[in-house]
């Protein structure tokens, strides 16, 4: 039977004590020849965990690197259960773009505005 990243993540999330099981998870994946799915699996585990504690997976993309003060200010806008990932994306030209749970996007970047203008 072929398992996908989601199956591994669900099985892992269902187990109680996680710390000593991480190694075992990857051993099982290696045995099944599914190590290529490890990054996907980690992401899925993260997604499931955030969902379980009632938070959201937030991705904030800035056009250029922010100083720690601005970054902290932005991060403080989200709930304590949210998992916030920040990233630098020069393609945005200026501004920022926020994605929630990989599903909803708030685009406040210059590239997005220009695109809207000339659409």
């Amino acid at each position, binding site marked *: 039977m072929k398992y996908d990243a989601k199956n591994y993540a669900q099985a892992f999330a269902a187990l109680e004590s996680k710390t000593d099981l991480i190694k075992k998870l990857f051993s099982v994946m290696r045995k099944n020849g599914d190590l290529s799915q490890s990054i996907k699996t980690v992401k899925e585990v993260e997604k499931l965990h955030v969902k379980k504690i009632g938070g959201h997976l937030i991705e904030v993309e800035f056009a250029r690197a922010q100083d720690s003060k601005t970054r902290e200010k932005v991060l403080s806008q989200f709930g304590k259960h949210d998992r916030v990932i920040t990233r630098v994306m020069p393609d945005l030209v200026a501004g920022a773009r926020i994605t929630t749970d*990989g*599903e909803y*996007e*708030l685009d406040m970047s210059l590239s997005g505005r220009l695109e809207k*203008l000339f659409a």
Partner: protein
Amino acid sequence: MVNMNSICRSLADWKNFLHNMSYEIVEKLKREIAGFKDDPKVRSVGTVIEAADGIARISGLSGAVSQELLEIETHGGEKIAAVAFNLDEEFIGAVLLGEASRVSVGNRVTGTGKVLSIPVGNELVGRVISPLGVPIDGKGALASEVRPHQGGRTSLRLMPLERAAPDVVSRQSVREPLHTGIKAIDAMIPIGRGQRELIIGDRQTGKTAIALDTILNQRNESKPVVCIYVAIGQKQSKIAQIERRLREAGAMDYTVIVSAPAGLPAPLLYLAPFAGAAIGEHFMDSGRDALVIYDDLSKHADAYREMSLLLRRSPGREAYPGDIFYLHSRLLERAAKLDEAHGGGSLTALPIIETKLGDVSAYIPTNVISITDGQIYLESNLFYQGIRPAVNVGLSVSRVGSSAQTKAMKKVAGKLRLELAQFRELAAFVQFASDLDDATRAKIARGELLTEVLKQPDASPLPFYHVVPVLYVVLNGYLDGLTKEKVRDFETRFIEYLEARHKEDLLGPLASSGVLDETLEAVLKKTIEQYHAINPAN
């Protein structure tokens, strides 16, 4: 330090540039920029998590609807269109309509809220377009572009590729003939406007030739028909040849070619007939008559099978997906004859199916046979015997066309099918003809004459008012005794004679009324006698 000279020079350049630009363009742009309101809103997005073989799996976009047009933003900033096909619990299976190699994992996907549409209008006539409605004949963009959001005036409109077929209330029965110009078909398997008639046969039996002759014949028609030829999975060289042939004959003046050659990815082959149907529907909706030829639906089914297997849909018989019947039925149901309240337009469909070794009981042929209103069955044996078009009259049928057949043709050709059937029964005895009684010998001779007269070369369709007198002559025994070799010669001379001497009193009234009444029949009889008097040899 800023160099003032360079600033002045660049300002002068800028000024020159602005002067060179058209005033209208600048004004329009100014208005757009001034009126632009930036109102950032949360929108639904997705991410490509898998991309291969022209198929992408997308996570997110949980609000996407089936058949929705999606846009994938590639890393290069380019946008590639895709159509949502499989709506799974976790993912969307989408088919890519652009260059699949540019799509990679992690690309952002947005929904458009629209279904796939193409621009349609009178400007498409005479053009060769891709299944997405883009002209590919090197003659430039379409004359007027579609910009409804900018309030631009246009004669083109967007038509969805998938649209529900006209309902029962808006239809009327098929009652107007669509002449193919092929004697055997117009006489025995008549096609009506709004009908779906399948052309089926093995490779190299003349299926496309029949379709092309039908297009060529429309230039003889008093009520014009817009033709749409959809090439699905054909060789580029063949499509180019067809386009050249139609252009040389002047048929591109009323024809659109939708080209989806074999080199295109399966999703585009899949979309091609729907694009053809959408174009045809535009003309039908505007009260005109249209004819769409799907050449061929076997390759279309193969393309759909490829897509479905890549989308991991369960394979069924011959590995086709379970909805292959529905795919063709919903396409062919769009052919219709609308009632007067809906404009009275029509869309006739001539789907083509290629059989393997004459096996009409295979999955796709039986499906399409059951969907259509009849079939023209072409046989390799007849083709190699020199009987061209190689129509097997016994297996061919038109279920609704007889009510649409021109009255004159109906009157003349009524007993043609019967006489040919009798001939086929007796054909086995042809070689023992000397031992047979006179009546049987006469039937065989008549059958041979009829077979000969129904032969017709490629690209030479005949208008019905030429076919009626020729068939009248043969079926009423005026040619009895004539050798088979002389039949073609007789036909050519007789038509020339009618055109030269009886255009006013016979061909003209026949063409305009479509009826061979007693007066015209008397004229025809007299004409035949006169012709025989002048040409006693034939």
